[in-house]
C-alpha cells in the first residue's frame, strides 16, 4: 500500500476523530477561559471559571458523586458480573438461556430503564413500596428518590443490577481457559469453589482490566439515571459531572463553567486510563518473569 493510498483509507476516520475528539478538546481548553452565554460575545476572564467551579459546592457534590459511581462500578457492578459469569461457567442446565436473558436489560435504552425505575421507586404507585406493603413491611416504605439519604443509592441500583455486558466479557475470557486445567484440578479433588478461585480467577485478569476500563468510562458518562430519575435532586444529592455540565449549559447558559466541568471530566478519564494502563503494564512485567 502506497503512502497516498494509505492516507486515503485513513482519511474518513481521521476526519471524524479530528472533528469529534481533537477539535472539541482544543475548543474546551481555549473557550474555558471565557465567560459566554452561548449567544453573545465571549469575554476573557482568565482563570475565573476554574475558580468558580472548584469553589462551587454543587460541583464538589457532582465530583464526589461521580467518584461514588466509579466505586459502585468497582465494588458492586464488576464483582456481581464476575459472580454470575463464574456460576454460569459451571454450565448448569439452561445456562445459555440465562446468559441471553441476563443481557436483555443491556439492549434497552437507559432512558427507558431510568423511567421504569422512577416508577418502581414511586412513593404511591411504585412496585417497591407496594411489594413492601404486601408483605407487611409497611414501615419500610419510603419516598426513595425524594430523600437525600436514599436518592443516590436508588439511582445506582439499576446500574449495579444490570451486569449483562460485564458478565459476557468475563464469560468470553473464561471460554478461552483450557478445559484440561479445571479437569486436572477436579481429579486432584478440588471443589468447584476452589477451581473458580485458583484456576479460573487468575486467568481472568485481561477481562478484569477490560471491564474496569469500560465500566469506569460508562460511569463518567452516566447521565440518564440522575437526569430522569431525580434531576440531580433532592438538594443536588444525586448531581454528577455529566448532569452538571448539562445544567450549567442548558439550564444556566454558563457555557464557560460547563466547559471547565467538561475538562475536569476528561482529566478524570485520563487519570483512570493511565492508572489502568499502569496496572496492565505491571501485569505484563510479572508475566515476563
Amino acid at each position, binding site marked *: 500500500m502506497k503512502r497516498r493510498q494509505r492516507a486515503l483509507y485513513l482519511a474518513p476516520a481521521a476526519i471524524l*476523530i479530528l472533528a469529534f475528539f481533537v*477539535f472539541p478538546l482544543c475548543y474546551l481548553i481555549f473557550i474555558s477561559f471565557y465567560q459566554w452565554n452561548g449567544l453573545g460575545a465571549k469575554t476573557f476572564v482568565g482563570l475565573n471559571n476554574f475558580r468558580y467551579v472548584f469553589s462551587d459546592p454543587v460541583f464538589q457534590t457532582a465530583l464526589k458523586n461521580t467518584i461514588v459511581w466509579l466505586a459502585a462500578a468497582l465494588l458492586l457492578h464488576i464483582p456481581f458480573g464476575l459472580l454470575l459469569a463464574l456460576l454460569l461457567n459451571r454450565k448448569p442446565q439452561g445456562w445459555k438461556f440465562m446468559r441471553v436473558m441476563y443481557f436483555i436489560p443491556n439492549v434497552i435504552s437507559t432512558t427507558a430503564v431510568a423511567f421504569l425505575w422512577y416508577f418502581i421507586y414511586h412513593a404511591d404507585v411504585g412496585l417497591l413500596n407496594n411489594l413492601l406493603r404486601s408483605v407487611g413491611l409497611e414501615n419500610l416504605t419510603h419516598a426513595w428518590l425524594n430523600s437525600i439519604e436514599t436518592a443516590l443509592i436508588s439511582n445506582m441500583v439499576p446500574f449495579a443490577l444490570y451486569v449483562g455486558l460485564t458478565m459476557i466479557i468475563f464469560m468470553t475470557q473464561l471460554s478461552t481457559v483450557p478445559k484440561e486445567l479445571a479437569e486436572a484440578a477436579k481429579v486432584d479433588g478440588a471443589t468447584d469453589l476452589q477451581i473458580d478461585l485458583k484456576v479460573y480467577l487468575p486467568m481472568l485478569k*485481561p477481562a478484569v482490566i477490560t471491564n474496569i476500563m469500560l465500566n469506569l468510562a460508562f460511569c463518567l458518562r452516566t447521565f440518564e439515571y440522575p437526569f430522569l430519575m431525580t434531576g440531580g435532586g433532592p438538594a443536588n444529592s444525586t448531581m454528577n459531572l455529566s448532569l452538571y455540565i448539562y445544567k450549567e*449549559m442548558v439550564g444556566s447558559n454558563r457555557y464557560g463553567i460547563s466547559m471547565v466541568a467538561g475538562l475536569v471530566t476528561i482529566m478524570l478519564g485520563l487519570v483512570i486510563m493511565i492508572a489502568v494502563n499502569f496496572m496492565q503494564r505491571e501485569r505484563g512485567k510479572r508475566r515476563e518473569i
Partner: protein
Amino acid sequence: MKYNRLRPARGLLYLFLVLVLIIMLIPFIWLLISSLRPNADLFHEPFAIPKTLSFDNFKAVMQSHPMVRYFFNTVIAAALATFITIVSAAAASYALLNRFRSKGLWVSVFTMCLFVPTNAFMVPYYVMINKIGLYDSILGIALVYAGVNLPMSLMVISGYMLTIPGELLESAKIDGASVSQAFRRIILPISKPGIVTACVFIVINSWNELLFANLLNQSDASRTIQVAIRSFLTTFEANYAYAFAAMVISIVPTIIVYALLTDRIIGGMTAGAVKG
C-alpha cells in the same frame, strides 16, 4: 455418593440464578402489563393481577403524538450514523493492516478516544452542529453519533481484521489485485462478522441515545424516540399508563434486533476486546 453431595449445591445455584433473573426482568414485565391497563387501575391497585388488558393506551399515544415520525427519525439517524462509521472504520482498519511508521500513533489515538467521556463535549458539539447549520436536523444528530461511535467500531472491526491471516493479502497481491480490489473482494467479505457486530452496536447505541439527541433537537422534524419518551413524562405527568405504552414502543425494536441477532451480539461483541 458424589451425586448426593453435589445435589444441594446445584439446587442452591439454580435458586440464586433464577432469583437474579426474576429481579432483573420483573420490572420489564411489570412495565409491559401496566402499559396494557387503564391509568385509573394503575393508581388504585397498581400491583393487582389485572382483570382487563387492552391496547387503548397504545392507540391513544399513537393518536396524540406523531410516534411514526419519531420512529422514522430515529431509524434514519441510526442508519446514517452506522453507514458513516462503518465505512470510516473499515477503511481505516484496512490501512492499519499494513506496517508503516506512524501506525503506532494512529492506534494509540484511536484507543485513547475509546476512553474519552464524550459527554464532556456537549458545548463543542452543540456549537459545531449549529455552525454548519445542522441544528434540529437528523443529519446533525447522526454526525455526532457517527463520531462518538467510531472508536468502538474501530476496535471491533480492526480487532477482527487482525485475525485474518496475512498470507491472504499477500497472495491477492501476487495475483495482481489492486489495493481497492483486495479491500472490496477479500478483506470486506471476510470481516463481515466483525462489521455486523459493530453495526448492531451502533444501531442499538443510536436508538437508545438521549443526551445529544435532546441537546440538538427543537422540533418534531428531528425528534428521536428517546427524546419523545422523555417529553412524555412532562406532558403526561398524571397519565403513567400512556408513558408506559410509549416506553414499550421504544423498547420493542431493540428487543427484536436482539432476538434475531443474539449469537452475533453475544459472540461477536468481545472480538478484539479481550486480548490475552
